[in-house]
């Protein structure tokens, strides 16, 4: 009897010991976002780490579905959808011991929507919220300024991560930028810019303590070096493996390649203000000349997914029945002839020069356009100049690259910003019917109805050939065999709570 009791005690003690977080996980990622304040950033590199430090009221899981986060439930309090009520999780504390409550939620959104938030890029996503009211310690109301059917999804976004009022107020802004505190599963203990950031497990995490004790994120801009770190056994998880190194990783012992479909889609947009792509027939001819499946098979080595509109299958508004234009060079030549396009007509293709994969894609597209008698010229640009200057001012060629993540996983984000008349990145295209549909879907909270309208928008995009969707990207991760429980996230927001490391 005594022995049994002793054995039981030993088992319990050992069990407890094993339940403690243990081991160190090293992750190599490309970029250091430099500021950890959620309202300052749009970098995916922030999301990779920020999601382990902070929580939002709602949480987007690895299945990309929205579920409870720091709020356990929510509902509209009125039929006209002007007041959105959240019931908050009790007994949650920030990593510095500060309590999480309704005041913290109000503080977070006052800061985001006020002068502090106006200095950063995230405020622009939350302008539909007028203000937040505290109902009681664990209940808040979001009072809406304008209808926003994507609001729940947005509250899982970077800008809506809940921050600790006392820590933020008591310290200068650069302290929070460097040593952020949230309610998340891991706590920052060290940050050396452009070198590494160290997290340790938060044993009091409301969702249960993580399995791994320490996570070191290393910032390594060069992909070959990241892969070398994986091969040398010094990194356990490596993000952003280029297609050219996929084979190397697959063949490395003790390591596996983990491809995951990302929400990022890649397309060539048509310039409607430049001849000859102002003609539908020419756009159709170009669409039939390009073999996007061939591009996926050869250049992307299969690490791409075909798409027929400028959204991934994860997006609300995705229509599986929509088919892309067939690859038919003969039909393309016929259409060009009908449109009266002479052989050797120049077609300018503009894209970002640093993207080695897309450079090859653009070259393939150019050779296919040449094959149907056009004369393509390729022009490359630097990322910021391209998106912030050339595209908004429409100083690009007939076809120009666009890569779009659509962080809300809702076609509204892409379609409104790229197709609605006179939007920042749409200096040229205008379609009254499409504008009306966009306004309509923004005005209703009925998601089924919105999905139908968004599919109609995708149909117009397809029929009018606003752009030529090429493929949905697959993100390639390299993972050491000693890592268990890791799921490569589609949106780059790592969930490390279930990850553990062996020897």
């Amino acid at each position, binding site marked *: 009897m005594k022995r049994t009791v002793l054995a039981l005690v030993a088992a319990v003690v050992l069990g407890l010991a094993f339940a403690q977080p243990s081991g160190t996980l090293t992750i190599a990622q490309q970029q250091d976002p430099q500021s950890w304040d959620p309202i300052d950033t749009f970098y995916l590199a922030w999301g990779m780490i920020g999601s382990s430090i902070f929580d939002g009221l709602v949480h987007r899981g690895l299945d990309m579905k929205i579920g409870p986060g720091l709020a356990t439930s929510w509902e509209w309090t009125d039929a006209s959808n002007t007041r959105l009520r959240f019931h908050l999780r009790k007994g949650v504390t920030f990593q510095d011991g500060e309590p999480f409550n309704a005041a913290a939620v109000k503080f977070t959104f006052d800061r985001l929507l006020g002068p502090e938030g106006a200095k950063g890029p995230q405020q622009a996503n939350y302008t539909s919220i007028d203000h937040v009211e505290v109902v009681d310690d664990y209940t808040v109301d979001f009072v809406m300024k304008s209808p926003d059917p994507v609001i729940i999804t947005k509250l899982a976004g970077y800008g809506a991560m809940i921050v600790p009022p006392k820590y933020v107020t008591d310290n200068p802004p650069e302290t929070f930028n460097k040593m952020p505190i949230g309610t998340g599963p891991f706590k920052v203990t060290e940050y050396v810019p452009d070198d590494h950031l160290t997290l340790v497990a938060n044993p009091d995490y409301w969702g249960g303590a993580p399995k791994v004790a320490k996570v070191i994120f290393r910032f390594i801009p*060069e992909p070959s070096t990241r892969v*070398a770190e994986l091969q*040398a056994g010094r990194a356990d998880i490596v993000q952003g493996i280029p297609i050219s190194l996929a084979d190397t990783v697959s063949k490395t012992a003790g390591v596996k390649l983990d491809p995951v479909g990302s929400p990022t889609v890649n397309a060539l947009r048509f310039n409607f203000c430049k001849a000859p792509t102002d003609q539908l027939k020419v756009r159709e001819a170009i669409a039939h000349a390009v073999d996007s499946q061939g591009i996926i098979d050869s250049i992307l080595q299969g690490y791409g997914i075909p798409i027929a509109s400028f959204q991934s299958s994860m997006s609300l508004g995705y229509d599986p029945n929509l088919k892309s234009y067939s690859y038919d060079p003969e039909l393309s030549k016929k259409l060009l002839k009908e449109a009266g396009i002479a052989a050797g007509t120049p077609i300018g293709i503009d894209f970002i020069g640093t993207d080695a994969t897309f450079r090859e894609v653009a070259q393939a597209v150019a050779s296919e356009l040449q094959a149907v008698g056009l004369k393509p010229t390729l022009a490359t640009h630097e990322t910021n100049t391209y998106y912030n200057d050339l595209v908004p001012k429409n100083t690009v060629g007939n076809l120009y690259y666009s890569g779009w993540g659509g962080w809300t996983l809702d076609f509204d984000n892409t379609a409104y910003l790229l197709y609605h008349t006179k939007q920042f990145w749409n200096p040229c295209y205008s379609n009254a019917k499409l504008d009306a549909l966009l306004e309509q879907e923004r005005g209703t909270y009925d998601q089924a109805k919105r999905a139908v309208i968004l599919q109609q928008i995708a149909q117009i995009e397809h029929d009018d050939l606003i752009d030529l969707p090429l493929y949905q990207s697959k993100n390639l991760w390299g993972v050491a065999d000693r890592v268990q429980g890791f799921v490569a996230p589609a949106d780059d927001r790592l969930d490390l709570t279930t990850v553990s490391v062996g020897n």
Partner: protein
Amino acid sequence: MLRYLIRRLFQSIFVLIGITLFVSFTIRLSGDPAVAMFQGASAPTAEQLATIRKALGTDRPFLTQYASFLGGLLHGDLGTSFRSGQPVAEEVAHRFPATLSLALAALAISLVLAVPLGVLAARRHGSLSDLAIRVFSLLGLSFPNFWLGIMLILIFAVRVRWFPPSGYAGPASLVLPSLTLGLILASTTTRLVRSSLLDVLGEQYVTTARAKGITEQRVLYRHALRTALIPVITFVGLQFGALLGGVVIVEQVFAWPGLGSLALNAISFRDYPMLQGTITVLAIFIAAINLLVDLSYALLDPRIRYS
């Protein structure tokens, strides 16, 4: 000597103003940091952009912005980074040791290789070892630094695992990046040491020294090499600037958190204060190195005096 020093320092101030003016002006031509902040992920309205520009201070006329930068510089304040919100002077000070240690280690490697190899090649002029040394230096000249860096990683970090592939953690991590820069610099320096020594060895005073019966060792090291090193030091001094340029690429390849990666990120984010601050510090540094180079001539050649 003192008058010379004051004159040189005075010149350096004008050089600095020229460089910072040029850098501040050109980065402002390359794009708006307020728009860059959105990363092409969300479309800002004109009003939002105006608020951000006001907060960053980029809504003011260029000369006002530049004047406030110069004013701050006099107090050692290089402004606040647009991206990280940290004081620029602090970040630059944190990064400076990383870049300096890399540059100095590369310089040391290059000299340790170049001087003996150059001397050997000059002494055995026309021999097989001279040919081998010239081939080595030609190879070094033809390697782009990022390629050489990746090759060194693959051999010494992945295959034999003697050194870490990247990072800034202890002396071991310094080996591969400094070797990448040092080998390339050594190749040009070796050629220069060789040709400079060959020239000097042909001079009359060397012949005289030999005629006086002085040993060849003494002729070489006591008489010829000192003179031969003057152009080498000029070259190395000038190369220091180029070396810091090479550091930008090598820091990227080896994830070395120095001024090179800081400047590169500042450019891509249009972080005006950070770029201005980094370039100013590098410019002061290069100006100081050049001054030291000029002063060192007097130590090597007693005929050179500054007044």
